[in-house]
């Protein structure tokens, strides 16, 4: 193993014998902090990629999630979800099997950051968002967003996120463009994404 390492590194050094000097990277694009987040833009972009947006008060989260799970089954929640958001009859992930997770009527989580310009929600595995698998197998994902978590652009999100955490960037429900390059919603991930935007 180590010999191939040295071989490859030696090859690269030999390839760079001309000692190319790269120019400084111009970063005159819109960096983090250029614009303030616009909630209306986020809602517009989420809807454009077929996520459903609901404006609710903190007291309405539990009932809304229960309604969205419908008759299909109970609501699954990560262990650290705020107690007042948990619907009656919900069950928490404590190392559940994939089969048990997949059988949930919906999964209800918080988020880490949302990007208005691209209609993206980012999960970082914090206790109120849980393991990655719980937002993957259920067919309905309900995600609660506080207005102060919304940033304007991708650079703003990168500045806020911690790369040491497992990150999942979600822009609408699962989709594919593989058949004639037309977007079709609903392949392997949750086919329904609901975003509950809390009133500030």
């Amino acid at each position, binding site marked *: *193993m180590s010999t*191939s390492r*040295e*071989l*490859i*590194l*030696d*090859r*690269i*050094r*030999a*390839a*760079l*014998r001309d000692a*190319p000097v*790269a120019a*400084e*990277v*111009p*970063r*005159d*694009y*819109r*960096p*983090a902090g250029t614009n303030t987040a616009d909630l209306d833009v986020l809602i517009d972009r989420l809807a454009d*990629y077929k996520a459903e947006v609901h404006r609710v008060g903190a007291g309405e989260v539990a009932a809304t999630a229960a309604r969205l799970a419908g008759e299909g089954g109970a609501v699954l929640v990560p262990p650290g979800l705020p107690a007042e958001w948990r619907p009656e009859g919900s069950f928490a992930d404590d*190392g559940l099997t*994939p089969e048990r997770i997949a059988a949930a009527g919906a999964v209800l989580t918080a988020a880490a950051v949302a990007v208005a*310009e*691209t*209609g993206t929600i980012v999960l970082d595995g914090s206790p109120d968002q849980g*393991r990655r*698998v719980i937002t*993957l197998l259920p067919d309905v994902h309900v995600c609660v967003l506080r207005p102060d978590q919304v940033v304007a652009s991708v*650079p703003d999100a*990168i*500045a806020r996120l911690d*790369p040491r955490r*497992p*990150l*999942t*960037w*979600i*822009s609408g429900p*699962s*989709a*594919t*463009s*593989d*058949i*004639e*390059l*037309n977007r*079709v*919603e*609903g*392949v*392997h*991930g*949750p086919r329904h994404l609901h975003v509950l935007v809390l009133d500030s």
Partner: protein
Amino acid sequence: MTTFLGMPATAPRGVGHLRGDQPFPRAAHDALGDSQLRRNLRHATTTIRGKSGRVIAELPDWQRLRDAGSAIKADVMSRLPDLLAELESRVTEAGGVVHWAADANEANRIVTDLVRRAGSERVIKVKSMATQEIGLNEALEDAGITPVETDLAELIVQLGDDKPSHILVPAIHRNRSEIREIFLRAMPGVDPELTDDPPVLAAAARRYLRETFLSTSVAVSGANFAIAETGTLGVVESEGNGRMCLTLPDTLITVMGIEKVLPTWRDLEVFLQLLPRASTGERMNPYTTMWTGVTPGDGPQNVHLVLLDNGRSAVLADTVGRQALHCIRCSACLNVCPVYERTGGHAYGSVYPGPIGAVLSPQLTGIEDNASLPYASSLCGACFDACPVKIDIPSMLVHLRDKAPHPPAERAAMAAAAYTMSRPRLYAYAQRAAKMARIAGRRGRGLPPPLSGWTAGRDLPEFPEQTFRDWWAQR
């Protein structure tokens, strides 16, 4: 040992998918006769060009992002050894294991051994150009391991016993009714009432793969990027098959070309804006997964990264050609290329088709094995304009044409022309001699043999009665 340590080396023959069975002109000739293929391609590339153009127009700083992306890639190439060593340290500190593969054979051996050691007879795969390039599926099958492609388009290709023809959408050459036929023929347990409605086809793939996702303990992926500063790897996808593979199994093996490393976490703010808009024409692709080594209790607990050379060091050694390593595999250049739109991807013979393939494949294999590819272009420059990291593909094509083997007669004629044109007196004689050609071969008839081949597809220009020099001398 016959290899010289430290000499950049091209990708070995006899393994992987970088070389076609026939030269481009012959393969293209066959493809052009397939009118269904041309209809499918025209429809698909027209759709994606429209979508991409609309979302790119939303960003006021698109050109500045391209400049930044281009500069970051040039910076990466200039200090690649240091960045790879840094990446290795960070991944290892985070609980991952880093392997180095000098070529396709070594990468296939490393992955096969890892799968065996994990005790699995099946792997689930996320679409990956690197594993296509090295022929990993064939190597696994030879070892008695079943690779299951989980990307919808790759699944269509695998079930149809077909070859990919596009970087992003490997089944772009198939329309919905052809896909329905493939599913009916080759997908175990498929509903015989299947229609060709795209959502119905997607749902069939979801049902078919769900059980496989839940019962397979090893996944193989590529990576869109790796951050040297943090050891973070990322996969950009749409369907959720990537999330399944990157989350559910115990063991995750990622095969990545050495050129994919990025220096800092912040650099992602550039590429996560460039890639989706240039690639699928979306503001952001539905899912992106990023992981840094092992996260206890969440996702795969055995994480491997295989760093692949397989000819990349040879590309890097060419000061003009090394730009081909800047490619982020968005496939925008395919979608705007008038040649690709008519011939499709199979004619290029390599997993890397289109304009970027025409410059990357011949450099990875050595020009003699793909000598016709640099000619698979009209040099119109649309690829350069479309490239999100501003790779100057036309200049590289010209450079590679010059390096490709030429017939001795053509070399001799060009050398004679260069000699003549750099000597004014000789040039004047030649011009006078050319007037004689007017008498020898009248317009429309072309040149006499053995030069008739040159004028078979071209008109011979009409020579003026008086040259500029004669006219000037008479004033």
